[in-house]
């Protein structure tokens, strides 16, 4: 009976296959899965290699994706440069955010024949991204850079098309230096209505488009500019000095806010005028890890985050991540006790 025999064979094979699949990998206990911001991703990539206790998987899908992933409990931890809004906190149903990384958003540009670290102040940057300045040889740019020879080349602003905490940081800065930006474009937010330019996915995507487009200008964490050999601008802070993203300028900016909000938020964008902030780079920001308050992986998550804000910070400076100050470390340790299983 050919039919019956082949049916038996098929069923047996299916059973064996199922058994093999089920036993071949019982879900490994030592995995932490996370998703979110591309801003801290370069440092988290190093952590993935250096952290030995568990295997950490991280998907850099943007802060918006991280917030929605942790809200849906699709991952064990989320990451976002944009602090959660009250609505997002309530949607998350018992989440906590902790600053764990400190760095800066660079304003990167691709322009042949022009040196690194050209001067761009907040107004100029806002005008560029609003589409008011459309050519590199515009007087408003030349005025800030005497002696620099700008070619006749169209400016292509590059922004984040996905939900991005870097966009939040960047628009936070632009709305504080340009009232017309605030009214025309809006923000700070993880997505805004950019009037001009091209969108790209992720900080890598922004770096990609910029490196392929002559005359492009965009924003991403400084690590991406350095890694892809893209030039970045010096931005004028409130004290009138020109600062580039670097460990010292980020540290100076971090002094702008030492007082945690109730949700552990620290806002250090565009520090005020003052002797402390002479070197401050005005588009610096903390990035946050998002944890559920009640999770079966509480012990592992706490161990990982504690390691990240202590030992993990050691790997930061090479990628221009300034180690977090001691009060951030203290706050993390005390707040982590709220995470329970």
């Amino acid at each position, binding site marked *: 009976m050919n039919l019956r025999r082949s049916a038996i064979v098929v069923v047996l094979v299916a059973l064996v296959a199922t058994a093999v699949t089920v036993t071949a990998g019982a879900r490994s206990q030592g995995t932490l899965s996370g998703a979110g911001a591309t801003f801290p991703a370069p440092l988290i990539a190093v952590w993935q290699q250096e952290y030995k206790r568990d295997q950490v998987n991280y998907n850099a899908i943007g802060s918006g994706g991280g917030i929605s992933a942790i809200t849906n409990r699709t991952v064990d931890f989320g990451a976002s440069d944009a602090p959660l809004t009250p609505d997002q906190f309530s949607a998350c149903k018992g989440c906590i955010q902790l600053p764990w990384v400190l760095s800066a958003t660079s304003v990167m540009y691709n322009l042949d024949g022009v040196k690194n670290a050209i001067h761009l102040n907040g107004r100029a940057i806002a005008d560029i991204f609003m589409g008011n300045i459309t050519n590199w040889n515009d007087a408003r740019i030349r005025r800030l850079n005497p002696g620099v020879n700008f070619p006749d080349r169209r400016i292509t602003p590059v922004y984040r098309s996905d939900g991005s905490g870097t966009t939040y940081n960047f628009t936070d800065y632009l709305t504080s230096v340009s009232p017309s930006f605030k009214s025309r474009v809006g923000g700070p937010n993880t*997505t*805004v209505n950019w009037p001009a330019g*091209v969108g790209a996915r992720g900080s890598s995507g922004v770096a990609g488009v910029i490196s392929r487009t002559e005359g492009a200008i965009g924003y991403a964490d400084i690590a991406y500019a350095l890694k892809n050999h893209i030039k970045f601008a010096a931005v004028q802070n409130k004290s009138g000095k020109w600062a580039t993203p670097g460990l010292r300028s980020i540290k100076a900016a971090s002094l702008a806010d030492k007082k945690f909000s109730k949700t552990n938020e620290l806002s250090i964008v565009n520090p005020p005028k003052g002797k402390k902030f002479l070197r401050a780079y005005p588009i610096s920001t903390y990035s946050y890890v998002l944890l559920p308050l009640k999770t079966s992986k509480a012990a592992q998550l706490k161990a990982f985050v504690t390691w990240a804000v202590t030992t993990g910070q050691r790997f930061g400076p090479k990628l221009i991540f300034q180690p977090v100050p001691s009060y951030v470390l203290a706050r993390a340790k005390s707040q982590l006790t709220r995470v329970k299983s």
Partner: protein
Amino acid sequence: MASVSETVVDPAAATLRRRGRFSPGDAFLYGITLAAALSALVLLVLLARELIADAWPAVQEFGLGFVTSRTWDPSTDVYGAATFLFGTALTSFAALLLAAPLSIAIALFLTELAPRWLRGPVGTLVEMLAAVPSVVLGLWGILVMGPWIVEHVGPFLHRTLGWTPFFKTEPATGPSMLSAILILTIMMVPIISSICRELFLNVPRELREGALALGATRWEVVRGVIFPYARAGVAAALILGLGRAIGEAIAVTQVIGNNEAITWNLFDPGDTLASRIASLYVGATTKLQISSLVYLALILLAFSLVVNLLARVIINRVAARHQVSA
């Protein structure tokens, strides 16, 4: 045949079975196959229900004005689809404009004009173009076609057609509406040409041979016999190709630049319904934004349904007419 001889059964038992019209085995098979056949309907109903349910907050908030509103502003949580409808329409129809003559010419080549030994291989190659995954076409579009447009094709188009609103500025970036249009054209051509090829092959031989007997050239046969006969079918093929272009998300989102402006300048970036859903859905942060994106998906679904049914209606009418006149 071996399998038939296996079903030879005892004649007495066969008589018994013939008495009852449906044996339990038959009923079982009938049951599970009917259930399987209903799966498509069930899936469609589920699809519509889930999408409508999730889009409902946006539908309630914006109503039908969503379709005409040009605002897509996450800062104020106000959303509208007009920009993406424009982008979808512009890219799809422009691609159709390019793909239609190309595909019909290819179908003609493969059915009438090519030497017989060439038809098979070339036909296969054209169909292989349909097998290229859209993410690979998008990759090629980003890294090969985009720079090529910016460096060579773009300046040429700007010089010659710069007086039209379509090529007003110098091409600046690879990601642009033009890139999306070209990629969509490449995707549509194999679909349209394979359907047209079937249509042209189905033209009754007597009609073709009659024309040839009268001394018509090959082109005159095409113009006088094949085109009039296959006209409606070709229209259906074009509509189906259009449907493909409207729904393409991945390749388009890779090359179109994701900008929310309504612009006729093809060197500018833009966005389509499908592309916007693909780029924003993962990172949408407010409930209203999420349901606005599902609202976009609903509009996209409605378009593809209309397109499909339209093509079907045409095909059915063509089939009926040809059956009657045969």
